[in-house]
């Protein structure tokens, strides 16, 4: 495992109150649900389903603070705003790719964190 460059789990840990099981649950949710939602978001934008994409982006807005990557939060916030009036399609696509890329950078670190919590429990 390397130093976390993309994620900051302070908020997640604060919310879990140090409860290891809950921490794991939240990390698992990030890996399972948030990951598929980020992928779905990109697909919806590719297909031009901007209204659905806006709703999904809004949902992710409260998910990304658990990841703690400010860039991810900012880009998604901008994306949600643009999707409300989807006129600047190139910018929407750029932001969508950015969200996707940053997420993909965060994901391995989240997975590693989950692994470390599981190992901690096993040990």
């Amino acid at each position, binding site marked *: 495992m390397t130093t976390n460059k993309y994620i900051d789990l*302070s*908020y997640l840990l*604060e919310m879990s109150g140090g409860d290891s099981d809950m921490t794991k649950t939240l990390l698992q949710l990030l890996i399972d649900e948030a990951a598929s939602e980020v992928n779905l978001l990109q697909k919806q934008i590719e297909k031009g389903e901007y209204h659905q994409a806006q709703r999904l982006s*809004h949902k992710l807005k409260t998910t990304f603070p658990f990841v703690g990557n400010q860039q991810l939060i900012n880009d998604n916030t901008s994306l949600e705003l643009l999707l409300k009036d989807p006129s600047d399609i190139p910018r929407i696509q750029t932001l969508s790719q950015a969200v996707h890329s940053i997420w993909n950078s965060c994901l391995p670190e989240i997975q590693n964190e989950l692994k470390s919590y599981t190992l901690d429990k096993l040990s």
Partner: protein
Amino acid sequence: MPYSTSSQKHKILVIEDNKADAVLIEYHLSNSGVGQCDFTFAETLEQATDILLISQEYAIIFLDINLPDSNGMETLLSVLRFAPDSNVVVLTGHADRDFGLATVANGAQDYIVKEDLDGVRLGRALLFSIERNRILSRLEESQRIAQLGHWEFNLKTHTYTASKEAKRIFGLSESDNIFKFRIRKHINDKDSHLDINVIINQLNKTGRYTQTIEINNDTIGKRYLEMSCRPFFDEENTMVSIRGIIQDITRLKSLEKENQERQKRIENIFKHSTDGLYTSTLDGQFLEFNNAICRITGYSTEELKQLNIKSLYPKNVNRNEILNKLTDGSSLSDFPIDCVTKSGDIRNCLLSTTKIITKEFSGFQGVIRDITDKKKAEEEKQKREVAEKAAQMKERFLASVTHEMRTPMNAVLGMSHLLLQTSLNNEQTEFVSSIKHASENLLSIINDILEISQLQHGSISLHKSDFSPALIFNTVKKAFDFKAQEKNIEFKLNIDDSMPDSLFGDKGRLTQILNNLLGNAFKFTEKGAITVNVQTKRGENSKVALLCKVQDTGLGIPEDKLNAIFETFTQVDRSDSNKIYEGTGLGLAITKQLIEKQNGTIQVSSKVNIGSEFTFEIPFELPKTTSKKAIKVHEIPEINNTILLAEDNKMNQIVAKKILENQWPKSKVLVAQNGQEAIDLEHKHKPDLILMDIQMPVMDGNEATSIIKKNNPELPIIALTAHAYMAESNQYLNYGYDDILLKPINPENLFSIITKHITQSS
């Protein structure tokens, strides 16, 4: 001064011991046709002086000089002492014609031989007196206007006489007897020049005496007088009297003093002006100039006196061409001109000059302002501004480019990651892994450049909130634990017991600082230990200084490089090491600037091959609210209620449910996935409060709230939203919500809002 007109009675004093003569005078005058007369009679000198002491306003005094108590000239002089301004006509006998003439020489207006007394002579004498009085009156008026009085000193009788204005100037009243007047008594005692003997001596020598004197007495205060006098001689050339004038020149003196002071001020300005001030002839010869001209040109006063202004102009500049265009009275203002100094240097100057042609003066008067230093400073300022602007543009360019680079880099990273998920042979996996690793490094560099650029540009702001410092340190520790295991390095975190549960500040930046310092420590430490010691120092006004030491047993930093390590793009030369260390050399610069941005400090001490110690201190505030522990115990009341949470985001569901159940174990938390489920659960379980997410599938929170509120308007429903504008614009009230809570959830706010509404409804 007595004043008579034909309509008035003429007051006449007759000093005559012979009653028949007195009656004769009254008779002749009454019948002379000169008008009505009012006669006063005195038979002795004593009677006369008593009368004159009471009033001297007689148009004429007829004086018999042979009285029972006084004879001859002394009678006249005695009367004149008492009434110096009076018109005295002496009455003499036939045999005394010569004496009569002598009385005129001694101050009588005229004389009449008693035997010749008749109405014509007496009337003429009276009319002459009246006319004389008129002339004297006009003279007094003129003297008053001119503040100039006359006086006379009789050397024979040693008596003074003076005009009213002379008395006024000396502060005497008109009725004051002149014999009370002594010049010396009214003059500053120090001024010996006013002794009459001194005046006489001076008059004997030069024939004239003029002196400005200063007097200061209670009546008139401080005044300046100018006195001048001349001697008068008899036939034997003996000085018999001194006649002079006295003029009040106080106002003149005051103006003169003001002028002198003004002149002094002007001279001071002239002397001390930093601008060169001068006058010159039309052809450029200096006439007057101040020290600044010497300073600007480098020439001495003597040298300048011999110098023509033309020689101060550069060879390629023709003074005449510039100045000949000027006509009389016209000016040249702030004309830029170079001045050649004595040493040959060029000073940049501004010339302002006026051409003056009058009878008294023909030439130029001008000002030379040396702007060399100012010009230089302005040029330097301009250069600095250009440099600063260029630096700013560079920073903005860097920020812009790095920002734009990050997006495609993220795409490269993301694609590499996705590519690694596909079926690849070993060689392809190795290639893609290399791409991914290089991309990660590149993205890290781009992020660093962007960060430092933003820091230098001042566009980074702090996001302050309450945070648990222990949580931050433990989280960061956890992040580096694997690294420590990987490198087989001991990694310890010691947090002092005095550490507060929470602080108020930018936790993200604190995390970043720790990551940077620990990242460096792990990068350059291959064996030994890395230790983080954290403690706090209590300061004033709810301030707490967080003191953190990051110690490692790594390569260390040479002493001569310690000062440079916080500079941008600086890395210690590790060419002696076998390892290659990646990085931009920005990490510590970013760290330092982030610490300073939070009013903190950072220091480093290090020894090569022994290790380094980075110590930073950041002041944080204590949270305005009391700590969470205190809230749990003292402030958040225990509740035993049913709370319905309508939320489609599972993470938020879990988090909200968990923290609510932790806080209020006796309460029940129900979860609905959407608005429709919320309506159903509300109907079935009758909760005491609903936390309603706004944007949900199937039915959104707004619709669900409207429906629930129709049936149960008293039920508190709190909107949960990530739409900040909803809270700002109070729009949530339109949908029937009782309050609003912004996501991501802040537990304290959540507890506070729930207890507020549950308490209200109960």
